[in-house]
């Protein structure tokens, strides 16, 4: 699954550590999600959605579409 986490983070000038703190996960998890190596759970995707004030489908893109 692709995502725009890195772009959205960069637009806000946040570091991976800052985003990790906001989403209550480790920095390594943010890094793995940004690189597409780990797909977040639905609750984590919703937390990201609330944080960026964007619908989930504008942050995470289903690779099979």
């Amino acid at each position: 699954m692709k995502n725009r986490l890195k772009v959205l983070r960069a637009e806000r000038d946040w570091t991976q550590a800052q985003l990790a703190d906001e989403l209550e996960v480790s920095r390594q998890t943010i890094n793995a999600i940004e690189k597409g190596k780990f797909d977040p759970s639905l609750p984590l995707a919703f937390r990201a959605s609330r944080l960026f004030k964007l619908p989930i489908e504008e942050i995470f893109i289903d690779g099979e579409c």
Partner: protein
Amino acid sequence: MKNSEISPSPYRSRVQKSTFKLAYWTGTWVLTTALLAFGPAFIWGEAQIFTLSALALNIIVGIGMVVSNRNHLKTLDEMEQKIILESLAIALGVGLILGIPYELMEATNLITFEARIGHLIILMSLTVMVSLFWNLRRYR
């Protein structure tokens, strides 16, 4: 947005706290295991009441360690949980598929030395470490 350089986030604080608790319980368990193993030989001799007490203490502290380990797992985020659970699953599988044949090798005289439980624990511990290392690299 919080400044992560100044103070640890609630998530990191929780993980640090549970890691400390797990280290405490693990250390205590190691000490009670040492007491059980060496107590009869070097401290109280044949007095079985002390051996039974040491055994009970070891089991109680062991249960505390297991609970602490489970609580620690629950404080981790989903990717860290996945990495650790996968590593533990591999270690369990390796322990099962190699542990039984290893014991049977002794029973059928394929090996001349004694197949001890300690060998299995060492194998499973090494498997956890290798799996953790491999999984951490996979998601890096």
